[in-house]
């Protein structure tokens, strides 16, 4: 029987808008990156990216295999691919590393090694970057095949870290103006990526914003607003799509940032205390929680399917009543995760996530 993507889309839309009436069950969102797709499909990253058709097929088949209700193009996440674009236009392609069974990576700090590198940093034209073109076309193929519009990723600090490396943190103390200059260039670049996306794919239904600066072990909240938050606010003034906040850090400022910036959803796994998330839902009833405390490096990786089931149950009974909750393990599904643990998620949703939710 073909996978019912129309049902999945409806499920996600209803859950995210808090419409429990007519909602059959809690949806399932998982982040499958190139390594997990490689594992499921049995081909290398280069083969996956060899054509938009292959890429789209692999992404769809992986999502269907794990019985997810959503699809994301891994390269649309504004991390390594943005850094790749900067590396290409600034003649730093030797900083890019390809792997057989995982996403490409950039050696942190290679593109903006010196202050001069930042001053002279060229902003990429995304229409001329091959991997971005592949991503745009892949989004269109997915839309055509399963009628699912793709979200686009934006981020400032994750790209800063890719381009400037550990020196970015030292710049907070020793050269904040230079650091802001780099943030500004990344912001301009992301706007270019967005404009290309709109032109080639259409307006994305959701912007997946990766907010790595907003972690207590990274920087103060004030600095996070300075080097990332203010740019996200500027994005929101220009971009009409709603924003979802993704943060897979272990000490996130979820509540603090949601008091400052508008999000329709948050996607994270820490703090691991479910009480934090119950309290979050109370304070932000209109924000959809995607995740809560299902962590891929804990029960997903080292536990049993029963452990995973229990974790999903805990999240559902506490957060799913009333809608605006989507089950999601955070972050990317690791290479070594037992597949029965991944498949335990849709099974647990089927068992505990049918509306109306039984809370006892």
């Amino acid at each position, binding site marked *: 029987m073909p996978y019912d993507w129309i049902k999945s889309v409806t499920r996600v839309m209803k859950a995210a808008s808090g419409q429990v009436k007519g909602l059959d069950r809690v949806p399932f969102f998982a982040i499958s990156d190139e390594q997990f797709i490689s594992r499921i499909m049995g081909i290398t990253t280069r083969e996956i990216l060899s054509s938009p058709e292959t890429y789209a097929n692999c992404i769809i088949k992986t999502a269907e295999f794990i019985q997810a209700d959503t699809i994301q193009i891994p390269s649309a996440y504004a991390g390594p691919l943005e850094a790749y674009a900067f590396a290409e236009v600034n003649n730093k392609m030797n900083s890019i590393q390809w792997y057989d069974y995982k996403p490409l990576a950039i050696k942190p700090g290679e593109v903006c090694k010196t202050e001069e590198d930042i001053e002279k940093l060229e902003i990429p034209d995304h229409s001329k970057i091959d991997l971005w073109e592949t991503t745009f076309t892949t989004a269109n193929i997915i839309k055509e095949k399963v009628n699912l519009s793709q979200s686009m990723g934006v981020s400032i600090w994750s790209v800063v870290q890719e381009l400037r490396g550990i020196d970015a943190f030292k710049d907070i103390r020793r050269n904040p103006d230079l650091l802001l200059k780099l943030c500004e260039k990344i912001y301009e670049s992301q706007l270019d990526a967005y404009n290309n996306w709109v032109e080639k794919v259409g307006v994305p239904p959701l912007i997946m914003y990766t907010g790595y600066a907003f972690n207590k072990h990274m920087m103060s909240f004030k*600095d996070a607003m300075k080097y990332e938050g203010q740019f996200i606010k500027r994005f929101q003034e220009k971009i009409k799509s709603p924003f979802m906040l993704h943060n897979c850090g272990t000490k996130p400022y979820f509540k603090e940032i949601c008091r400052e910036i508008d999000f329709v959803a948050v996607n994270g796994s820490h703090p691991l205390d479910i009480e934090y998330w119950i309290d979050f839902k109370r304070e932000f009833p209109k924000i959809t929680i995607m995740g809560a405390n299902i*962590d891929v490096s*804990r029960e997903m990786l080292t536990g049993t399917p029963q452990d995973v089931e229990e974790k999903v149950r805990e999240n559902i009974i506490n957060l799913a009543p009333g809608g605006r909750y989507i089950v999601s393990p955070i972050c990317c599904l690791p290479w070594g995760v037992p597949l029965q643990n991944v498949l335990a998620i849709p099974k647990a949703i089927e068992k505990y996530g049918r509306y109306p939710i039984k809370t006892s």
Partner: protein
Amino acid sequence: MTSEDLLMKLKDLIVEGEPQKTIELMEEIIKLGLDAKIILNEAIIKGADEVGILYEKEEYFLADLLMSGDAIKAAMEILKPKLLMHSDIKPQKVILIGTVEGDVHDIGKSLVSSLLQGQGFEVIDLGSDVPVETFVQKAKEIKPDIIGLSGLLTMSISKMHETIILLKKAGIPSKIIIGGGVVSKQSCAMIGADDCAKDGYEGIKKIKKILSE
């Protein structure tokens, strides 16, 4: 200014993370002939401890740790030759550290490396994306007290596991600590590491604890 004042000032420069000013003051202190061990214990280690407390109280963040790390490193480069002249100085503990193969993230690992070096440990930093065989080969060569495996990506756990298996197969007796956002007590136990740390600062604390046992 008295010796106590100078040591206090040096400690403050470390806490404030001022590498250049630390160098200037260190040169002044060395010229005065202050005892190297007193400089280490009364200014550098006290400064490092204060930085750690501020980090734990969330008054300091990664940028502050890194800048203080640079100041400590600068002070230690000047102090090291003087310390070696002490006959009662114990042989340095050796730490082999690196980010595992397939992972290029190096912030936590570099922080650990730089702060431990700054506190007088001998740290061999293999960098990032380090092949399993390189860890084994280097461990055989330098016989480290501790091996630190770092990683940020979720797939790094598998690579840490592979590295630990080969290190044990090669008969390397060193304690192994894993670090990074992906590690947990569960994954630590699963792959046979001796301990784990979520971030760079916790890594330093755990390494120092293991070395003091």
